[in-house]
């Protein structure tokens, strides 16, 4: 489903000085449909860059990334929304729209794909029920706790049943209880058939999952195991 082919990513020198940064170095792997894959590694190992490449937020310096046999970085800018509508994203810093309520944040994605008003009015409350935010439907992100914000982000990420969800350190700002809750939700979504790519440096989470783990170290893949553990 998603294939990285000899990907190297070097961030160029900042205009005000400094040196170029090597984020990924000749990386190749493939992720299959309905898989739950964790990308493990220390901060700065290249996990976020990897997810950004799938979302076409960044372009590789060398190599190609395929999404269902389509080279992501050959897609025209005007067609990028079509790719992104097949991907749900959970960010560490939530990235909820601050001027929209929880309901509107989640509904926005459905509006973007052109769902009908009826469909929106039925599905949004359902999904918010699943993430246990039914009573916060009209709250703004600033009125939510960290855990609630992350659950709202998850609701937004899978409301439109995307093919894949990218979760970038989704538990980074959460306590153990909320972290477990988020992981439980991601597992549940995966059971429904959505591919999950979880980038994290949380050892306990990765070890508890007993799913495939790709470990990054110094911009390279050092381990790729079917039922992996966090070993660095």
């Amino acid at each position, binding site marked *: 489903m998603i294939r990285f082919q000899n990907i190297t990513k070097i961030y160029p020198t900042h205009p005000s000085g400094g040196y170029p940064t090597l984020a990924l170095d000749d990386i190749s792997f493939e992720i299959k449909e309905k898989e739950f894959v964790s990308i493990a590694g220390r901060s700065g190992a290249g996990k976020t860059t990897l997810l950004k490449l799938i979302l076409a937020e960044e372009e590789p310096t060398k190599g190609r990334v395929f999404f269902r046999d389509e080279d992501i970085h050959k897609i025209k800018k005007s067609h990028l*929304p079509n790719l*992104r509508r097949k991907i749900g994203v959970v960010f560490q810093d939530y*990235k909820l729209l601050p*001027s929209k309520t929880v309901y509107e944040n989640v509904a*926005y*994605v459905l509006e973007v794909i052109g769902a009908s*008003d009826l469909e929106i009015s039925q599905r949004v409350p359902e999904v918010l029920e699943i993430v246990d935010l039914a009573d916060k439907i009209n709250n703004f992100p600033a009125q939510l706790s960290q855990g609630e914000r992350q659950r709202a982000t998850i609701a937004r990420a899978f409301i439109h049943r995307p093919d894949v969800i990218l979760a970038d350190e989704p538990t980074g700002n959460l306590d153990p209880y909320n972290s477990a809750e988020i992981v439980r939700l991601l597992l549940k979504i995966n059971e429904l058939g959505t591919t999950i790519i979880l980038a994290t440096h949380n050892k306990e989470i990765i070890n508890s999952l007993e799913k495939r783990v790709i470990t990054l170290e110094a911009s390279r893949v050092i381990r790729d195991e079917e039922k992996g553990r966090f070993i660095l």
Partner: protein
Amino acid sequence: MFTLLKRILKASWLNFRRNIGLSLATIFILLITISLITYLFLFRQISQFLIAELEAKVDISVYFREDSPEEEILKAEDELSKMSEVKEVEYISQEMAREKFIQKHKDNLLLMASLEEIGENPFLASLNIKAQKPEQYETLANFLENSDFKNYIEQPIDYYQRKPIINKLSSITSVINKAGIGISIILILLSFLVAFNTIRLAIFNQREEIFIMRLVGASNWFIRGPFLFQGVIAGFFATLITILIFFLTCWGLGPKLEIFLPNFNLQDFFFQNLWILFSIQLLTGMILGIFSSLIAMRRYLKV
């Protein structure tokens, strides 16, 4: 399409209401720009009115010798009135000239006594000519000097005595016009820049939201739409407020201005030009709102 438009409109109104501080700031800046353009329009109308009033006061008179047959004078009048440079020609016969003099100086006993003393009518028949523009008097004077009836004309034509005044008036009106246009362009440019920058800052504040929208798969137009309509809403409110302020100005200032400009009624001016003004204001406000948003958003939509 209809659903998309409905969603964009709804989102615009919600954003406008929820970011009311920012929306009010945008309205205020647009209000200043639109007001400036409105007052420049008013200033231009008043200055044009003043120029027209001044120009209307300028004319030249061509006096005909005492022995000139009246049909020759009427022929001259006819020829002059056919010229494109001529706005108005008035024939004043010897008798009419005498009447006018008497009317004007009837209280001056000395002058009246002198006129009585002379006995016969000392006034000459004349043609009073008004040109379309002050600079055309020279052409008219040349035409009269080389015309078929030049021998009947009492030389020199009084244009040459009035020439310095006419020229001065011509240069004053030209300076007022040019300065008015120049100042207007500079002020309009400045106000456009201020409005553009305010909207740019408002969008800069929302760049993170634009970025998120792009990442969740929104197309550029789905993102732009609400911002553009917010510009339209701000432009619309700014126009309404400006029209109201302008109406109050005309209503309050009208009677006072009439003391200086007796034939210029500001209230009539307001109602006669209401639709033009409203259109100019609305177009300015909306175009400014839309274009500023479009340009300001460009860089944030590149993700």
